[in-house]
């Protein structure tokens, strides 16, 4: 059975496709080394159009107005340029209200597309551009640690990380966010106090990574000017141990790329942290799609399991009845404390690590 994948890995080859939502212009070059905030492509999200009533402006009939046009389809115009006229006793003219390009002209009217600033797409991580996707974007490759989460407020940053928790189940308190965390990416456990977020904005921090957060705080977190990423989910739960270990050891005092993009399963986009590390040339890529199998490292998604991780011991041959009464395909999972629990396959995510075990 297909297993959804969540990557939490201290060392892997990371390939990320960074593409525009609509075709645009790619500005990065193949082989270019990029940092997270480098612009790699740009596009015009929504061009602005304006219809000029030439006939009315010149006070003439539409067919006569067409003969008085100074600009035609395809011409670029600057703000204030005369686009039609002069006409009449007072030598009336019509001027371009802004700089742009004439898209259509006729029947006494002119449609101008205004030049607008393009929207920039940034790299989001340290790495090398390994492929250009013409008009759409690039593929960036790097090596290091990768940690994916479940919610992001759509912003990104790059900076030094500072741990604000001593154990996975610590709650982040407002008092912990002071001048000492200014300009860093703070890493905390559970957050339920809006004051934490307000203090983070005042400090200000460069970013915030939380194990979990009360869903009540989402409207505030969404509007913060810096990236906020949640690793495990909503409501009080300890930070998953794999992430805690990774953040506490591998990446301590390192610069990280925090790309708190919104979690969109449909596009395969998850908020994530990438820490570029000097690692060997040959290193395995994590799987993007996996199948459930014995021996597989898994993440337990249901809140009842408190974001624990474990290893699948076996896939049950028959559907199992859970305390809720729901009967479902399930696996027996050995948790880190050696406890064996039965978990619906639907509540498991694979780490995407290659396993030689037989798939189910």
């Amino acid at each position, binding site marked *: 059975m*297909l297993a959804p994948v969540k990557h939490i890995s201290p060392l892997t080859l990371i390939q990320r496709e960074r593409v525009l939502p*609509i075709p645009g212009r790619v500005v990065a070059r193949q082989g270019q080394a990029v940092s997270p905030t480098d612009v790699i492509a740009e596009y015009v999200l*929504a061009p602005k159009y304006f*219809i000029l009533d030439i006939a009315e402006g010149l006070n003439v009939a539409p067919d006569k107005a067409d003969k008085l046009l100074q600009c035609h389809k395809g011409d670029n115009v600057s703000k204030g340029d005369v686009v039609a006229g002069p006409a009449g006793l007072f030598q009336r003219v019509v001027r371009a209200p802004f700089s742009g390009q004439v898209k259509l002209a006729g029947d006494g009217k002119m*449609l101008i597309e205004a030049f607008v600033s393009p929207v920039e797409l940034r790299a989001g991580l340290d790495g090398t551009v390994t492929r250009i996707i013409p008009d759409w974007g690039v593929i960036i490759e790097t090596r290091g640690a990768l940690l994916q989460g479940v919610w992001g407020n759509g912003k990104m940053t790059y900076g030094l990380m500072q741990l604000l928790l001593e154990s996975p189940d610590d709650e982040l308190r407002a008092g912990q966010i002071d001048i000492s965390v200014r300009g860093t990416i703070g890493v905390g456990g559970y957050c339920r106090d809006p004051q934490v977020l307000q203090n983070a904005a005042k400090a200000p921090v460069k970013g915030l990574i939380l194990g979990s957060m009360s869903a*009540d705080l989402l409207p505030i977190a969404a509007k913060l000017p810096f990236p906020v990423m949640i690793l495990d989910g909503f409501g009080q739960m300890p930070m998953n141990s794999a992430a805690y270990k990774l953040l506490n050891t591998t990446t301590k005092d390192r610069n990280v790329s925090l790309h708190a993009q919104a979690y969109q399963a449909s596009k395969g986009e998850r908020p994530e942290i990438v820490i570029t590390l000097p690692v060997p040339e040959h290193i395995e890529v994590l799987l993007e799609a996996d199948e459930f199998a014995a021996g597989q490292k898994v993440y337990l998604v249901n809140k009842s399991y408190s974001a624990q991780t474990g290893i699948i011991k076996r896939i049950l041959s028959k559907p199992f009845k859970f305390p*809720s*009464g*729901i009967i479902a395909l399930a696996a027996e999972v050995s948790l880190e404390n050696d406890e064996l629990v039965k978990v619906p396959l639907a509540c498991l995510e694979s780490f995407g690590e290659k396993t030689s075990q037989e798939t189910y």
Partner: protein
Amino acid sequence: MATSTINTGSLLAIDIGTASTRALLFDVVSGHYRFLASGTAPSTVVAPFFNVGEGVRRAIDNLAKATGRRLIGSDENLIMPGLADNSGVDALVATMSAGKPLKVVAVGLLEDITLASARHLAATTYAQVVDVIKLNDRRQTSDRINTIMQIRPDLVIVAGGTDDGASQSVLDLIEAIGLASYLSPETQSPHILFAGNQEIQTEVRSVLEGVGKLHIAPNIRPTLNLETISPAQRELTAIYKRVRNAQIGGIGDLLSWSGDNLTPTAVAFSRVIRFLSKKYDPDKGVLGVDVGSQSTTVAAAFDGKETLRVYPYLGVGTGSVRTLQKSKLDGIIRWLPFDTSNDAVQDYIYNKEIHPHSLPVTRKELAIEQALARQALLLAVRRSLPDFPAGSARPAPDLLPWVEPIIATGSVFSKAPSPGQALLMLLDGIQPTGVTTIVVDQNNLSSALGAAARINPLLTVQVIESSTFLNLGTIIAPVGYARFGTPILRVRMTNRAGVETTRKVRYGMIEVLPVKMGEKVKLHLRPLHQFDVGMGGPGKAGEVTAVGGAAGIVIDARGRPLRLSQDPKRRKHLTRKWYHALEAKG
């Protein structure tokens, strides 16, 4: 594809949902069509596959394992037609609900007339109206163009002008549509469905043909008092296929295998409901509800006249947070039979949206998910009520018309731990009136049968008649209000052996008559205090033949519309009591 009323071949139906893809096999057994088995796999519409093919292939593989029937040949293609060794199938149909709802701009002259009809048309498929352009719209043409360019709709539905009615006003409205289409790159240009004044088709063609993907359908509002959605709905389904084919990988193969027979799941579901409405009591309608991960569908038909409404983002998985937002937290919490914090419920629902495939492990989690389903259903049914045919008989304008049966589909019902739990969700969410029967489509076959009806109506008829749906029970729901505990109905039940039992039912309770599954009994119903059980008016008594279902025969004496107590303690007490009344049997 040719339509045949006599087709003895096997049929494979593929249903691609947001969460799961299912392969359903139908074939002839002892001279009658039967549902044989299904295979399920996670849908692969989204990352990392972005192609329905992998999920379809796995679902077919699982079906092949379950049946021992070879369905895929050595060339990796579906074996079609079937071979003498019983491998392969003779036909394939497909239904689909996965994918983001189509973004629709609705254009019409007047809000309550043609624009309302345009909205109704959009609501017959997985679509969301994201903007409207109407006669009294104060935006200038350039602003309308900018809006369309920013929204990038998949579809623009243009209604407006009754036949022989307004023409220039409609043409003025579509100027912005034509210009926006002209300015859009070919790949982003929206489909335009013109379903307005038929007298101006030529002018509409001259403005829009060549600059946009124009489709013309019969007027959905030919006169002020008449709305005819069905012909335009067929064109809408064709557009849906084209949009999905452009958006999602693998759809082309599916269209090729099925001879272009890919139908939106809701449309296929509605077809079955319409079919049933012709089969059952013409004085009553037939209601179908489908609660899914992302959307909820309400399909009703009254003597062949259908009303179909799809509510995208009103679901129990990827639509769970939107369901919460549309209901407020109290709307969900009121259904819970236990004490819990608001935060716990809210957090659970947000986590459910992140992991829509996850299953409830504890009873509390299950109760939250079932509360979400009740609320999605309640909102969908309430919103649909005004759109049911004006002539449909109902006890009050704000109540559900008399319908029988009610068909429920969706895994929240079919996988509920007990029939009683499924029934209580449906009673709370739909709030049926009078005497009816509620059945659950336990194998989620309805949409497949609706799609199959186009090429093999006999299969649809015979499978529906083969007890494939689980009868939860006959429901008696008196309409009216009384003080809690007031006797409102006297029931005299006579079983086949002639044994009579009587019962007095009190307001506020759910009572179960212990009738075995399939057992027929006669019920004499005498409502008290002017309660109405659909026997010809308030207080009128009558006799019905009722059949026991998985939950027996259920008398829902909680009044209509259902009013839950404002006192949380009392409400929870009653919720538990209702739950236990049905759970004890179910």
